[in-house]
């Protein structure tokens, strides 16, 4: 028997005691360990629900209302986000709001990183051009896409003109952090 009680507080996906954070120039990169995720898929012919009063967005869209937001992930499929709700049974809450649809817990499958700009949208556009092979015009505010980044599949969400979020496999959280931090740092070095 161990002679002491271990620290049982949950670790962020990057493994440190606190969520990883980095700042380079105008861009601040922060691990979002409070983001709850649940996928929502319609059964064939099922009616589209409006969980928490949120109108689910169309293809490539992202919509937010209070602490809940959602982005389109495929035909009749969405990912529902609960901000600062990772500590609760989020999927059960979503399922209660979407009767007849299939809801699956995804919080523990993903690691999310928020990138905010203190100098408007220009640094975000420059970073997007480095990160993903998608026309930044197709990733305007309120748009989201699933695409490839360093051979990983990621969700890229434009929450605001000066705010980008990237969510990827939690098991690759360290790799994803390295990719994002390197890109942000190089962008700052190139601008200097």
């Amino acid at each position, binding site marked *: 028997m161990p002679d002491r009680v271990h620290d049982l507080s949950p670790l962020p996906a990057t493994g440190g005691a606190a969520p990883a954070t980095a700042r380079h120039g105008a861009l601040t990169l922060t691990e979002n360990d409070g983001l709850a995720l649940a996928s929502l898929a319609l059964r064939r*012919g099922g009616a589209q629900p409006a969980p928490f009063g949120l109108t689910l967005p169309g*293809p*490539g869209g992202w919509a937010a209302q209070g602490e809940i937001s959602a982005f*389109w*992930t*495929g*035909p009749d*499929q969405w990912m529902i986000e609960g901000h600062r709700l990772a500590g609760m049974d989020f999927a059960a809450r979503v399922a209660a709001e979407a009767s007849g649809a299939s809801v699956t817990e995804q919080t523990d499958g993903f690691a999310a990183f928020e990138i905010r700009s203190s100098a408007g949208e220009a640094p975000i556009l420059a970073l997007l051009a480095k990160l993903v*092979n*998608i*026309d930044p015009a*197709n990733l305007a505010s309120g748009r989201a*896409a*699933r*695409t*490839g980044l360093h051979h990983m*599949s990621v969700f890229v969400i434009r929450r605001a003109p000066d705010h980008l979020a990237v969510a990827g496999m939690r098991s690759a959280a360290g790799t994803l952090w390295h990719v994002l931090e390197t890109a942000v740092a190089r962008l700052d070095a190139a601008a200097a």
Partner: protein
Amino acid sequence: MLIPHPLLGPRDAQEFFCLGSASLLDRPDGMSDGAQAAFHDYVYLRDNPAGVHRELWFHEQGDRSWLVVTRNTLTHEILGAELARDVALRAKGGAA
């Protein structure tokens, strides 16, 4: 090469996986008479045209939908793309 995704607009072909001929959608009925011969033709006797070809493409690093992409195999020109689900439902008689 860009694939004109019917829902998401032009996307890089690297996000996709190409399965092959869209004739794979027309799977024979395994319970019918002559099913063995029909499956032999279905599995082994594929057309491999030099020119316009309809192919199944999977948007693996994207929305994970299957598309039927019409492509010219000689020039790599993409002539169109639609959701394979729409194509299959239309073939079954339009029931949505």
